[in-house]
Each structure stands twice: as structure tokens, then as C-alpha cells.
């Protein structure tokens, strides 16, 4: 074991190396120091923006700086993101809006401006790519980075210091803060980034991985959700340490492939690589209703609008998908997912909608739904997409009509042409 006074460390504000057991940086006086025995050996990072949507909104409107801010949709929507002031009051993301407002009535609620967030997200991603080409985005505001070997192109700076500089750069140039997790594997890097939010920088090394994980709840393990945690609890397993005591064969026998994951991750073994091919695996859109809907016609209208949205994205990115996925969430929060494989890929709203509606027909009747979504997976190139059909002559006409509508919408906006499914004479729409 290395003594604390010989641990490598540096200041996160001025990046000076800090010796010994100093509590503050000698150069700038900052208390934000990082120290860890494996600091210069670790290279796998998880970077997560802090309260991203809310931070962007606060950046753009300084008046909001000291106010609790919630970004989310409508009165029936859920909280997408909330700032740390709102979090102190008990607001959490994914919380229904009415509950959030109960907890924090004076919160400023802002409708999400996804276009703005993804613009900022792209800027940040660009900065990540300045560090390493091995960036695997998980969402608009978080990513894994593998910085192995990058010392050679960054003046022999170890990954840890590069990351600290990166965090500072994002604060200075973008105006939002990030939290960094540094470890030797994806699992622990992600756990680390979550440890000291916001503006955090946490390190988990190989040496302390097992003892660090032992007292943690099993839900920390990637893939252990509420249901699986309950199952484990029934077997008396609540902490990761208990999993560390079990052998692989037993875990696999009990929990199948998940057992193997439990075995490995509980010991901090995670072989997953960082994949930079950030190509989309699916394109989808969903909406939560103001009020639960059971009526087929009403659901169909939403489905049509969403199909058009998905189609628009596919066409814009030159993609086509072969499997159509319908997602429904019932009143009691149960998710139903149905999919259907087409015999050729598509990017047409018409085909996505028709496939979706045929799946929807089988689902409606008994239940009320709070959410509907549609998407396509098995993405591929467009040369094979939407071939002409010998039998369905109408399909060719509908495809032509769709192409014409696309041109009109490009010129005059999305509302310029609508199908009968989504058109309402008065603007009494729920969208």
C-alpha cells in the first residue's frame, strides 16, 4: 500500500501537481484536488453533464440562476431534468410533473428545447473527440471515453489531467458543468461519475474495486432494475458483497446469463470496450398523453404524427429500418412493446404507420394508455428500402403522395400539409 504522502495528485483548477498531504493547492489555493494511487494508470472515463437541460437553460437566462428549474413537458408530462436547487426540494427526473410541483411549487417549469440541447451536446462531444477518437455517446449529454495511449498526442499528460482540463474547458467555453468518473472499466467509470455530482471528479482503481463495491446495493449493477433487485432480495441478496461471496456456477444456475453478469460486475470485472461507432441502432419517437387514452382513433392520430416524425428523421439521415416497434405504456405504468419485421426496410411514414396500426389494433380494447411510441430498428441503407410492390398498387401512389408532402413541408413547415389522422379543424390538439 502506498502512503498518502506519495499518492499522485493534482489540482483540478490550475492542474498543478500537488505533493504530499496538502489539503489545498499550493499554487492557487483551491481545495479541489484529486489524489489516487492509480491516478496515472487509469484511462477509462465516463463523462456526464450535470443537470444538463436545466444547466443550459440557466446559462441562457441568468435570472434563473438561483431559482429551482424543472425542464419537462406539460402538466401531464414528466420531469426530464431538474437543477440541483430543485433536487434539494425532492424533485427527481422522471417524476410526474404534478408531483414535482407539489414538492417544489415555486419551480420554474421550462418546456424542453431539444434542438438547443442537442446543439450544445454536439459541441461538447466535439470537445471529447479532441481528446480521443474513442468516444461512445450514451445519450445527448453523457459518454464513455477510452483515453489509453493518448498521452502521446497530448504532451504526455496522463488521462486524468486531460479530463480535468476538459471539464474546465466545458465550463469556460460552453457554460455548463460536467462530472467525470475515471476507472479501468466502463461499469466503475459510470459509477464513479455519479459519486460526487455536480462538478465531480471521482476515481475508482483496481485495488479498491472489490471493497468499494461490497457494501453497495445490488441495484448499482448495470442491468439490475427494480424487478430483478426484488428477485435477488427474495433470495436474501441485497448488497454486492454477498454476490462477491458466491461462485459463478451458482449464480448462472440461478439467474442465467444475468448470473454471469452479477458474478463479473460484482468483482469489478467488465470487459466491455468503448465503441466509437456511434451509429444509431434505432430511430423512434414517443409521446405521453395529457390524459390516458383508450380510444383507437385517438391513439391512431398520435401514432400517425409520431410515424411522420420517425420517417422525417430517417429521411434526413438517409436511413431505413426493417423492424417496426410499437411501444405502449398502460395506465398502471406497464410497458408493452410489440415489433414486426417487414420484408424490406422502410423510411416511409405510410409503411411505419400501417405496420404500427396493425399492431395497435391487437392491443386496444381493455387498457387505457398513458404513452405511445413508434420506431424502427434493424437500420440499413436506403437502396433496398421501399421497393415497388406488384400487388399493392395503392402503395406506390401513397409513396408518391408522401414525397410530395415532404417537399411542401420543407418549404412551408410541418403543419402545412396534414393527413386526416392528425388534422383537427380547431387547434384542440393534444400535441
Amino acid at each position, binding site marked *: 500500500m502506498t502512503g498518502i504522502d506519495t499518492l499522485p495528485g493534482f489540482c483540478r483548477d490550475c492542474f498543478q501537481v500537488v505533493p504530499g498531504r496538502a489539503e489545498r493547492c499550493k499554487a492557487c489555493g483551491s481545495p479541489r484536488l484529486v489524489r489516487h494511487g492509480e491516478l496515472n494508470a487509469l484511462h477509462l472515463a465516463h463523462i456526464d453533464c450535470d443537470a444538463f437541460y436545466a444547466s443550459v437553460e440557466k446559462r441562457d437566462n441568468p435570472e434563473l440562476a438561483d431559482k429551482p428549474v424543472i425542464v419537462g413537458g406539460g402538466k401531464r408530462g414528466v420531469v426530464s431534468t431538474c437543477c440541483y436547487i430543485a433536487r434539494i426540494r425532492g424533485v427527481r427526473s422522471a417524476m410526474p410533473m404534478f408531483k414535482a410541483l407539489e414538492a417544489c411549487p415555486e419551480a420554474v417549469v421550462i418546456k424542453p428545447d431539444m434542438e438547443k440541447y442537442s446543439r450544445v451536446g454536439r459541441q461538447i462531444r466535439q470537445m471529447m473527440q479532441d481528446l480521443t477518437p474513442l468516444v461512445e455517446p450514451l445519450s445527448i449529454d453523457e459518454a464513455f471515453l477510452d483515453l489509453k495511449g493518448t498521452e502521446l498526442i497530448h504532451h504526455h499528460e496522463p488521462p486524468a489531467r486531460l479530463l480535468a482540463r476538459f471539464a474546465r474547458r466545458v465550463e469556460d467555453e460552453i457554460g455548463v458543468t460536467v462530472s467525470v468518473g475515471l476507472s479501468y472499466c466502463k461499469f466503475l467509470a459510470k459509477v464513479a461519475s455519479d459519486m460526487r455530482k455536480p462538478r465531480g471528479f471521482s476515481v475508482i482503481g483496481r485495488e479498491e474495486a472489490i471493497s468499494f463495491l461490497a457494501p453497495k446495493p445490488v441495484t448499482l449493477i448495470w442491468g439490475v432494475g427494480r424487478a430483478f433487485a426484488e428477485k435477488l432480495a427474495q433470495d436474501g441478496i441485497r448488497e454486492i458483497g454477498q454476490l462477491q461471496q458466491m461462485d459463478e456456477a451458482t449464480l448462472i444456475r440461478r439467474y442465467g446469463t444475468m448470473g454471469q453478469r452479477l458474478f463479473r460486475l460484482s468483482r469489478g470485472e467488465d470487459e466491455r470496450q468503448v465503441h466509437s461507432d456511434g451509429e444509431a441502432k434505432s430511430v423512434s419517437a414517443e409521446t405521453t398523453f395529457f390524459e390516458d387514452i383508450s380510444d383507437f382513433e385517438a391513439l391512431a392520430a398520435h401514432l400517425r404524427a409520431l410515424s411522420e416524425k420517425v420517417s422525417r428523421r430517417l429521411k434526413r439521415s438517409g436511413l431505413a429500418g426493417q423492424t417496426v416497434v410499437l411501444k405502449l405504456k398502460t395506465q398502471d405504468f406497464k410497458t408493452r412493446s410489440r415489433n414486426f419485421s417487414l*420484408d424490406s426496410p422502410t423510411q416511409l411514414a405510410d409503411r411505419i404507420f400501417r*405496420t404500427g396500426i396493425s399492431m395497435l389494433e391487437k392491443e386496444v380494447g381493455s387498457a387505457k394508455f398513458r404513452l405511445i411510441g413508434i420506431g424502427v430498428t434493424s437500420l440499413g441503407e436506403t437502396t433496398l428500402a421501399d421497393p415497388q410492390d406488384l400487388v399493392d398498387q395503392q402503395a406506390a401512389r401513397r409513396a408518391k403522395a408522401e414525397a410530395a408532402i415532404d417537399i411542401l413541408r420543407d418549404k412551408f413547415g410541418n403543419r402545412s400539409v396534414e393527413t386526416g389522422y392528425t388534422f383537427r379543424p380547431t387547434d384542440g390538439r393534444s400535441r
Partner: protein
Amino acid sequence: MRITIERSNLLKSLNHVHRVVERRNTIPILSNVLLRGEGQSLEMKATDLDLEITESTPAQVEQAGGTTVPAHLLYDIVRKLPDGAEVLLATTTDGSAMTVASGRSKFSLQCLPVSDFPDLNAGTFSHSFKVNGSDLKMLIDRTQFAISTEETRYYLNGIFMHTVEAGGDLKLRAVATDGHRLARADVVAPSGSEGMPGIIIPRKTVGELQKLVDGVDGDVSVEISDAKIRVTTGPIVMTSKLIDGTFPDYQRVIPSGNDKEMRVDCATFQAAVDRVSTISSERGRAVKLAISDGQLTLTVNNPDSGSATDEVPVGYDNDPLEIGFNAKYLLDITQQLSGGEAVFLLADPGSPTVVRDIAGDDALYVLMPMRV
């Protein structure tokens, strides 16, 4: 029930009937095969509620009766018994189990009551005729590959069979299409088939029928009603529901004005398509056919792996033409052509192309081009 039966007889019949039984069933009785010993024979029956096969085979019946046991289990047991063995099938007195015994091997299978076994109520058939087994097989072989798997268009999930006047003769015609290609095959209509309703035989039934008539030289008898078909060959009776739907007007899809004719040796063409499509991805990629005087150039471009070209001499004396097709679809069709030469009737790169044997149009295919 207590019977003795030769293992080979039992295996042969089980082999026919057990295929109908789906491996996964939510209704337990549908996993079972019905066995009934009576007179000098054992009758076996299996069903998936849409399709039912029964078959009788000689057996020594000591005690008449019946039961139902898991079909795949029984089949696997009989399969593993030694060749030439005699098999005893005997139910226990309370009917809850059946013993399968042969030599020193002994099995006990759980039974479900015969009364629970569903019957595909065949009703009465309006038309019945005898058709040559090889004719029926030809109709299936030539069209089966084009059956659609897209459930949304359930009426394309089978072979459309009907009678039609063609060239002064009455033909029994099979048609299948998935929207990308269409296959049509004719045989001389057997007497008794005239006036039969057009029927859509579902894909699973088509597959079983194909196996059933494989190697049958003589006639099989066919009975048809609006909703069902029954085919009998020897001791085997297959009854199936038909697809309740309207098959589209396929004649409208077959172009009649394609005036650019290309003749090509079937085997040479097929080998060339097969070769160039090596480079295409598994999903199926377009093969570009560039046709000019006497020569056909096939090209496949796959940005991920490379490109391929091949040349084949053809009979063609029209304006040069470039047209793309799905490689798999081309292969499917050329595999079915029996004559030495295939005839392609083309119009333009965006219109359906007709493919047929040089010998005539007993089998005719329509193929939708792809963008290349």
C-alpha cells in the same frame, strides 16, 4: 387400447403426422398425437387446429381403443428403437398413461383423453377430383418460394389455386406472390376441378403437401370446399383450413407489352448470378444486368466489401438496357426453370419483368426491378 405394431410402420406414419404438431403449444392437447387401434390398423392423427393429418397403418389390435400422447416424444422414442423391432402400445386401465415397450426398452407416457382432441370439422366438400401427384408437386415447387411472409397481407400467405381458361384448355393454376415477385404455374385441369372455387392454401399446408406428394406417381384425390381442402394419398388424409381472403387480381400485374426479349442459358445465367452475388451482403443486394447486343454483363457493388462483374452470352437484339434485380429473387426463379433456356421479357428499368421457360408458359414469373 393394446396393440402391437412394426416399428418401421409406426415410424413412417408418425413421421408424416408429427410434423403438424407445433413444438411450442399453449394448449397441451395440441402437443399430442391421437392413436386409435381398431380392426387391423392403428390410426394416428395430429392437428394444429388449422391443419390435420391422419394416417392408418397395419397393426395387431389386441384390444381396441384410443388415447393421446405427446407427439414429438413418441416420435423420438420410436426413432431410437432398433430397426425391425416390434412395438407394444398399451394404455393403463385408468387411461392416464400409455406404455411403449419394445425388446427390453420400456417407456411410460402420460396421456390426455381422446374426447379432448379437437376435430377439424371438415363439413361437406363441393368439388372433388383426382390429380397426378407429380403435377401437384410441380405446381407447388414452382410457386412456393414466392409466398409472402408478411402477416399484414395474410391473403398472400399461401398459394392461390384455381381453374382458368388458357390457350383453349382449362388449366389448374397455382399463383403466389409477395409483392416483389410473382410465380404462376399451370397444369391441365383434372376432370372434376372445373368450376371449383379459387382457394388460398396456407403456407404450412403447402409445405406439408409438398412432402406428402413427393415421390407419389399416381393420382391423389383432392376435395375442396370454400373453407377447406382435403388431400388423400394412400393411407394419408390431410385436411386443412384455407385462407379466408381475396387473392389480388394477379393478371393485372403480369405485363403483356414487354417487347425486349432476352434469351439466356439457364444454368450459365444462374451460375453467374450466384458468383457475382457472393460479394453482396446477406440481406440481398441488387445485381445490375447490363444487356446489349448478344451480351449480358452482371455487376454487384457492395460499398462494404467490393464489386464483381461477370459476362454471359445472350440472345438479344434490342436497345441496350440496364436493370437491377435482387440477386436472391433471380436465383429463386432460375432454380425453378426446367428448360435449357430462359426467356426474359423486359420493358424498362422501372417496370416488372417477365421470366419464363423457353418451352412455354406453364411456369411464368414476374419480377419487380430494384433501383441500381
